[in-house]
């Protein structure tokens, strides 16, 4: 049974204790600085001196490393190859593979872009590993995000694995009655309809019942909502957020000034 779709790892760390908005601001600032700073080595430095040490500080380095090598590295590596081979910049060819040329400029360009993507995905991974989804949503709702919007996001994270499990049950039930789901493409395509029907109609009924269930628990109450978890937001974190915002503005300004 799939229980949930959440990457959060419960640990006692400085990063875990930060307010979710501070963490969100931090990772967005790191990403924006990586993309806007005019200095070539910025994304590399951000990765080595900020993202990786933060994963250690958050006590999630093993999980972070696993995600980085299994998921982020292949994605960034693919981007690197595509851009290195197909970016038509530079004259001096340093590597040739049939009709594909790599120039020093295209190599440098690809390396920086791949690193930017690496920083972007790894920073988000770090955020997901150290932030509980319901705490993030509670905090954002407290700050004015509509409750319905927060509900849609967070319930989708949980209900999707349940729908996947249900689809597996329907497939097993139909197969036990002789439905062919494993032979040729055409036969499998024809088998989709008897699977989709129960899943879609079943889901529609579930949506109605779930709407009744949450209405019965005051979901649309006009009272101001409270939260089970206390999500602290000390004043120094507000200062950190403003400082990060200033850094982003400086990075963008430097980019505009030098271009």
């Amino acid at each position: 049974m799939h229980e949930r779709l959440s990457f959060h790892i419960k640990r006692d760390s400085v990063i875990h204790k930060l307010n979710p908005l501070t963490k969100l601001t931090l990772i967005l600032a790191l990403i924006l600085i990586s993309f806007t700073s005019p200095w070539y080595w910025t994304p590399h430095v951000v990765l080595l001196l900020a993202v990786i040490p933060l994963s250690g500080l958050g006590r999630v380095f093993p999980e972070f490393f696993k995600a980085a090598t299994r998921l982020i590295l292949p994605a960034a590596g693919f981007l690197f190859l595509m851009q290195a081979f197909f970016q038509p910049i530079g004259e001096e060819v340093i590597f040739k593979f049939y009709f594909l040329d790599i120039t020093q400029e295209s190599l440098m360009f690809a390396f920086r872009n791949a690193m930017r993507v690496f920083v972007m995905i790894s920073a988000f991974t770090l955020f997901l590993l150290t932030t509980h989804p319901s705490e993030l949503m509670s905090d954002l709702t407290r700050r004015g995000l509509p409750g319905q919007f927060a509900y849609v996001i967070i319930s989708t994270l949980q209900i999707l694995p349940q729908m996947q499990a249900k689809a597996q049950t329907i497939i097993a039930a139909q197969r036990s009655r002789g439905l062919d789901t494993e032979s040729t493409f055409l036969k499998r395509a024809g088998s989709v309809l008897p699977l989709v029907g129960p899943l879609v109609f079943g889901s529609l009924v579930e949506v109605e019942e779930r709407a009744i269930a949450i209405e019965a628990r005051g979901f649309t109450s006009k009272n101001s909502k409270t939260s089970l978890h206390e999500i602290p937001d000390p004043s120094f974190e507000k200062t950190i957020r403003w400082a990060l915002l200033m850094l982003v503005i400086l990075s963008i300004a430097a980019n505009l000034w030098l271009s």
Partner: protein
Amino acid sequence: MAFVNLQNVTYQYPLTKTPALQNVNLQVNEGEFVAIVGPNGAGKSTLCYTLAGFAPHFFKGEMSGTVEVAGKESSKSTLDEWVLNVGLAFQNPFNQISGAKYTVFEEIAFGLENIGVPREEMKSRVEDAMALTGIRDLAERSPYSLSGGQQQRVALTSILVMRPKLLVLDEPTSQMDPIGTREVFGTIRKMAEEGMTVVLVEHKVEWIAEFADRVIALKDGSVLLEGKPNEVLTSELLAEHGFGLSRYTSTAREAKKRGIWKKKICL
């Protein structure tokens, strides 16, 4: 005056040709535990939705007559006001899990967060409700990792924690084993003794006979019979209309027919 008062209530869902409830008159006193029985399609769930304000506020449709709970009239209230007084738990526990929470404790607190209960009070109310339904050991589990019976207890607890004046339950023990069913019926009985009014739809007539104060039999959207459990559940009229009887009643009836049993039909 009765705590729950339905006067000539007729309700028809949108896009249907016949009313699901027809001219229903029903009174329930404060702290009374009333069970509703009836065959499929009798209007039991619709009656639950009507009491809980979802018919017509949520489903729309046509309604005539009046529905009053604690002196307030359903047609003059909004659904979010109504649910503060009337709690509803229904059959399928899976669909009653909000999907917004990651532990059972958080799930039960969800309703209290919505209505703005302060944090400390919320925690103690959740603790109390969990102790009442015997699910303290599930507090840190994911609601989706539970069995159907456990999920039903969580769904019931999630409503009990709201402390409604009227508790409406539509087959709340359908996925429970006999031990779980007895425990839940015991809890509901206790809540009624403490002053909560309970309307329960249930097919397990043996449990109704043991725990309910009064039984109302519905057939084709109308009240067929009402009275004490032993009067209603052993009535000849119910057997004639195809109601499910307890195995003891069926056996006694058969024995009486064959001349083996001379006394009154038992439950």
